[in-house]
């Protein structure tokens, strides 16, 4: 019985998976006392990172299981940290009209959004609480 509250879910790169994972994250946030607008915003930001991994990481290749992981945990002094990781390849953004909204939304909500593109993509979002 050591450790902090945390949620880790492995999912396939499948559009149908985003909603139940958001719901699980939402109920987790409520259980650890994060409610209201803050909760809704965190779900929005995490939802964007999830959708990116589902949509871009494997870019058309068929979906397998465990291609994506979301890992949320409460860290003392930092707040809530959420990593969304995949084993795909980050696609550098050539500006396209109507695209680029997802990361913009995540950046507007999280205190920091950092993207690590070694060995797949990990988007780390920190939400100070």
């Amino acid at each position, binding site marked *: 019985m050591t450790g902090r509250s945390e949620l880790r879910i492995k999912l396939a790169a499948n*559009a*149908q998976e*985003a*909603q139940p994972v*958001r719901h699980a994250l939402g109920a987790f946030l409520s259980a650890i006392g994060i409610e209201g*607008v803050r909760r*809704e*915003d965190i*779900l*929005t930001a995490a*939802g*964007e990172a999830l*959708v990116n991994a*589902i*949509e871009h990481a494997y870019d058309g290749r068929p979906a397998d299981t465990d291609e994506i992981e979301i890992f949320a945990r409460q860290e003392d002094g930092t707040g809530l940290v959420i990593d969304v990781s995949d084993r795909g390849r980050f696609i550098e953004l050539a500006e396209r009209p*109507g*695209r680029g*909204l*997802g990361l*913009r*939304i995540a950046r*507007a*909500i999280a205190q920091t959004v950092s993207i690590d593109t070694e060995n797949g993509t990990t988007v780390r979002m920190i939400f100070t609480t």
Partner: protein
Amino acid sequence: MTSRSIEVIHLAGELDIARRSEISAALQVNGSEAGILVDCCKVTYADSTALAELLRFRNDAKNRQVPIAVLTGSTQFVRVIQYAGLNGVFEIFEHRAPALTYLSNAGKLP
């Protein structure tokens, strides 16, 4: 009578990537409308996929000179538009009556 009327498009639930093609199919303009009300009152979540479709729809409508208005009570929906930097891009209303008034005035009713 062949007066053009205001059409209403209803969207509901969680608008995310799994529903992109459904959202895309719902958000169509053919140019004969006096105006289009996108009723999102029952939308509980919208992500950038939904916003991208709304943007595309808004551009289609603009090209055909059909005014559109978005009706929403969801605070998540309003905030995600702000976070996306799309403030002022859509005409957003919390109540039906002012939305319809806006469309009536903006549209070229005969």
